[in-house]
């Protein structure tokens, strides 16, 4: 299990360019379909917690999955796994061992992976939206938070805080209405 966690997150770190969000569909694929460690709903909670908390989203996700499966040791192994490829590749580049900027084949491969990462993010939007946007209130919340973050450049921390409070208020109002 520990090795499985390490390998999964090592591959995630190695193949996803553009960071945590691009990892979402791959992680979902692995966790929900392949290994059946989580349900779709549990994955959405994972994403909500990992994006709502500060820090690198990929590390948050590695820690979350690792912790849920094998506690402290699991989260440590997963986090090291997701960081390690970055660490090695950046060190090689920083030491000038790989003149990647001049090599059209390496740059092409990286460009292909980067374009694919954008595709992955589109898949992520669709997958999470499908699970979350059930009903007009949730849909409005999703659209509103998108506009706030992407176009009005509101800090994600405030959006998460507002969403948290909105969730509690809506629950109270519905509770009184009943």
């Amino acid at each position, binding site marked *: 299990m520990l090795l499985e966690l390490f390998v999964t997150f090592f591959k995630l770190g190695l193949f996803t360019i553009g960071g945590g969000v691009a990892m979402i569909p791959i992680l979902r694929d692995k966790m929900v379909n392949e290994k059946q460690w989580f349900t779709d709903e549990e994955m959405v909670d994972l994403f909500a917690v990992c994006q709502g908390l500060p820090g690198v989203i990929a590390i948050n996700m590695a820690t979350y999955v690792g912790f849920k499966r094998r506690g402290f040791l699991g989260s440590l192994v997963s986090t090291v796994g997701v960081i390690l490829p970055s660490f090695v590749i950046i060190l090689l580049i920083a030491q000038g061992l790989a003149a990647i900027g001049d090599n*059209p084949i390496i740059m092409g*491969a990286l460009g*292909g992976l980067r374009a*694919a990462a954008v595709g992955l*993010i589109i898949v992520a939007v669709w997958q999470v939206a499908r699970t979350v946007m059930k009903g007009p209130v*949730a849909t409005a919340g*999703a659209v509103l938070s998108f506009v706030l973050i992407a176009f009005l450049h509101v800090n994600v921390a405030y959006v998460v805080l507002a969403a948290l409070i909105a969730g509690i208020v809506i629950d109270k109002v519905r509770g009184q209405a009943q």
Partner: protein
Amino acid sequence: MIYLQLYWAFFKIGLLGFGGGMAIIRLISDSIQQFVAMTPAEFANIVAIAQVTPGPVAVNTATYVGYVSAGVLGSAVATLGVATPAFILVSLACRFINKHRENRTLDAALRGVRPATVGMIAAAFITIGKPAFLTTTRLGSNVPALLAVLPANVDVIAILIAALTVYLIAFKKVKSFRVLIIMGILGAILGA
């Protein structure tokens, strides 16, 4: 003690960086001056490399800045620093959610945050898609004839690769790692 200072600086960045990647990079750019003399252009170069190399952008940037400031040990310390708060906070959050799973207020709060998750992911599409699609360094340099007929400041091939990725994963149910390897090879053949 540069290593302790680096660790602490990146610990704070990990603790205050809400929203992942680019938010964290802004914090890094604000705090590196105490470690290494770097012009904004030099920092922009590092971020550009971090964005086109595998791995989380924030981890890549932290590793690079740590290395430039204090060598290999510096990069290890910076990366550990940015990872530590995530580690603590997420473990605490997991424990808390497990313990209060039946709590109505927590459930309501989580239900409030879930839609915002969609907004955050969609916003990431813009942050990552814009530099990947709207660029003059396009894919396809191995096939100049192809590039000549395509627009100069939009990477049409990158858009097609993204669309093909969506098609294969969402509609053909091809395993995502397999799709990534295909797209990497495709990019290598086309060149950039």
